[in-house]
């Protein structure tokens, strides 16, 4: 009988193996699908049951915290500092959904991310409270950007060039995230197609970059080895490109100038000729290295970011920069180029870092409820090299000249060296509607902050007059 007993035990072993396999299937293999199943209310409920971690600004200002309601559930409250950075912080409500940092760092904020440090608390019951986040946001810089826009639609970003941390991300019109917690507020915000306050114009607003794109063209020219800052280029105006006349701003005709002077005074024809000389390929490659064509490496919800690049006429699809596009007009940031302020800020930060493209981050530090640091940004991380260090230094020096004696003097800071580039993209030429831009960084000799600023549809605004002062105020607040 003992043989039978042993066999029977083997059968029982098999049955228990099935039970374990079944458990593995639901807890590990198909867990993500089940958590996303629309019939499953748990993920939503967790936003109520668990006090989410507090989000603070870099200076300690509270941006978002959870408060307990009378029925024991928790609800999110956002402070005024968070409202000023509403698109960056986002919101978290059971019925309103998740956006911004609240979405990107939901696992941290609900305490779901586990590491060895939290293993013990996981065994004890991990979700007493989510982890706290200290963001890289500096309210003073954010305020400077918002005040600079002064009620005009537009966007601005400021990036810590040493870490890739986002110091400010302004998008106007903004909104009060607390309103997403009420049905009436949601209806109002989601229904406002006129102002689209929920849209983050810094990450998902796509605008023609205008002359700020000449930094990319210059980088491409330097990378070919055929050009140096002192190379003489032909800036005579007008010229005919693809049967249409191309002129310099104000019809100026400086003739033969150095590349540095061409950038300093933003000579359109010089850059159009450079692009025709080097051809589309080096330009396309340089764009790719700067991160055009892809969403930047950034801890922000992917669905709230749009990639920058050259688009087809209906702006519905991205197309490559090749022989089929007017490369001369791409070179000066016109044609069908559409870029986000974030991408241009990334270009500025990359040049400031000697050609090393940073990985962008909104989080400086994650701490658990006992104050232990679970992760921190530290020195940040690289997202790849976009330029050689020599080319980047040369380009930085040329951009310094723009602020010193060229179109960008309004961005100059007393006692500090500032590098920058202005842009004034033409939107509707007949009505003189433009998109002013400024990108830059400071101090030029050892950069700490890079900025990109743009304003939507101004009448006759230029980068140097309209955008540069905002960039100046933001850099001043950051330094």
């Amino acid at each position, binding site marked *: 009988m003992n043989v039978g007993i042993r066999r029977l035990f083997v059968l029982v*072993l098999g049955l228990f193996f099935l039970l*374990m396999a079944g458990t593995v299937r639901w807890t590990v293999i198909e867990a993500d699908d089940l958590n996303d199943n629309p019939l499953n209310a748990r993920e939503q409920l967790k936003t109520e049951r668990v006090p989410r971690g507090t989000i603070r600004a870099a200076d300690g200002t509270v941006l978002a915290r959870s408060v307990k309601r009378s029925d024991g559930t928790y609800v999110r409250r956002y402070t005024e500092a968070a409202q000023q950075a509403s698109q960056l912080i986002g919101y978290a409500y059971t019925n309103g959904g998740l956006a911004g940092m609240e979405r990107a760092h939901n696992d941290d904020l609900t305490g779901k991310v586990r590491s060895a440090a939290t293993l013990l608390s996981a065994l004890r019951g991990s*979700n007493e409270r989510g982890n706290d986040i200290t963001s890289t946001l500096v309210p003073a810089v954010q305020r400077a950007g918002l005040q600079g826009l002064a009620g005009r639609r537009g966007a601005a970003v400021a990036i810590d060039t040493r870490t890739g941390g986002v110091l400010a991300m302004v998008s106007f019109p903004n909104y009060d995230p607390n309103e997403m917690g009420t049905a009436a507020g949601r209806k109002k915000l989601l229904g406002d197609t006129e102002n689209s306050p929920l849209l983050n114009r810094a990450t998902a607003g796509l605008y023609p970059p205008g002359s700020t794109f000449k930094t990319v063209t210059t980088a491409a020219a330097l990378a070919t080895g055929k050009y140096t800052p002192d190379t003489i280029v032909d800036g005579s105006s007008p010229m005919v490109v693809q049967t249409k006349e191309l002129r310099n701003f104000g019809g100026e005709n400086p003739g033969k100038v150095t590349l540095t002077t061409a950038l300093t005074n933003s000579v359109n024809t010089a850059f159009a000729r450079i692009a025709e000389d080097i051809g589309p390929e080096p330009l396309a490659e340089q764009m790719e290295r700067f991160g055009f064509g892809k969403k930047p490496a950034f801890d922000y919800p992917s669905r709230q970011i749009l990639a920058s690049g050259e688009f087809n006429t209906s702006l519905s699809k991205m197309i490559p920069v090749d022989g089929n596009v007017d490369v001369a007009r791409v070179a000066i940031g016109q044609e069908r180029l559409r870029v986000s302020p974030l991408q241009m800020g990334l270009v500025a930060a990359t040049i400031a870092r000697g050609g090393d493209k940073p990985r962008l981050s909104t989080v400086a530090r994650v701490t658990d409820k006992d104050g232990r640091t679970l992760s921190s940004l530290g020195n940040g991380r690289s997202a790849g090299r976009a330029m050689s260090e020599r080319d980047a230094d040369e380009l930085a020096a040329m951009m310094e000249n723009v602020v010193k004696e060229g179109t960008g003097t309004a961005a100059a800071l007393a006692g500090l060296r500032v590098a920058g580039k202005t842009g004034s993209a033409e939107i509707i030429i007949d009505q003189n509607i433009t998109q002013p831009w400024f990108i830059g960084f400071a101090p030029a000799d050892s950069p700490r902050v890079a900025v990109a600023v743009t304003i939507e549809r101004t009448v006759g605004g230029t980068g140097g007059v309209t955008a540069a002062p905002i960039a100046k105020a933001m850099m001043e607040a950051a330094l």
Partner: protein
Amino acid sequence: MIFRRIRDLALLLPASLLVAIGFASVFANDGGQLSDLSLLYGAGFLGLCIVAHTIATVALPDADPYLLPLIAVLACFGLVELYRIDEDLARQQGTWFIIGIVAFTATIYLLKKDYRVLKEYRNLLALAGVILLLAPRLPGISNPENGAYLSVAIGPLAFQPTEVAKLCLVLYLASYLADNRQLLVQEARGPFGIFPPLKYLLPLLAVWGATMMMLFFIQDIGSAIMYFGVGLAMLYLATGRLLYPIAGLSLFAVGARMLYELRPTIQNRVDAWQDPFDPDTYERVGGSFQLAQSLFSQADGGFLGQGLGGSILQLSEKTADGQLNLILPAAKNDFIYALITNEVGLIGAVGLLLVYLLIVWRGFKVALVAHDSFSKLLAAGLATVFALQVFVIVGGVTKVIPLTGVTLPFVSAGGSSIVANFVLLALLLLVSDRARRDTREDLERAKSQQNAWGPGAEAWR
């Protein structure tokens, strides 16, 4: 001897730690809504485990020392989870535990001299089993729930007779098969020499068939699978013929198919099992809502779990008619495994299954060392029925098989389950004690004989 006593008590350490950590973490997670006094339940419960353990070690010194500490781990785990659902449930469970220990002690002392007297009462046991199964249909004490007649209500006490009847069945089968196994094999006739004369099979088939009919009649499919499985297993052990279980399983398949056609409740169960996330099945009354929620809560648990007290059992808003809006229904009994997985994750759930497996292994070990057929069949039958009960409920909750409700032994809330399983444990320990004592005495006898002829013999010569 002292060393053994200390070791025996030390075996209760895992259960003690579990209670201490479990209660502390549930208490901490609850944010002080539970009273401090309730922490005493944990200590009291542990005291009960020590009492049961002492009784067992004193009365049955040779019995397997690991069985009771392993059961204590299960019981303590169950208590922590019940405490986490509702303070009152833990208190009730504690009370049932006391009754269970009384039944355990009574079984041991009644049968301490020789449990094999049970063999003589097999017809009485069979009758008792059938009556027990019939009881839920008797007017006056009938207590139907969701269309199934699972329990009887005597005053305030609800009692599930199937739990006790399973012991009657195993005892009957062990007794009958031990007496007739030779005949079943030797006198087999028929085309392949596999069919024993009907007269030897008839009593077996009658009791067994009656049991099955009764079960289908009271619609407790989970218990039916358990009974059927243990019957086949014991028939196989007694005869060594694989054809019995194969034929039995074929019959089962035909029966299941017929039942599927006849009973809409069973159709619902199978539909729910096949696609629990189908919106129609999900919304249907008696559909897959429970199973789907069970799977969701397991997914929520993931690898490490949400921590004791960390799972979500109900929505904060009540239903329109003021009831609790449960999203993990029947967490205290049928779905307690889902709750456990939710709270202690895959790691904890597999740990729990391993404890069950260890108990079953010790049970089979008892069967292996037992000296006579009855004891072997009894121990193996008890271990099998215990294993099958775990398989039926955990398999149902994890969608390995269609869901049918039975209790998770020693963990689910449910008085009759605890009492019956304590008696099951007592029987296993009785068999174990006898078998190991016989083995020890044989060895000692051999040793003393060796001594008589050993060194002394040298001198004598």
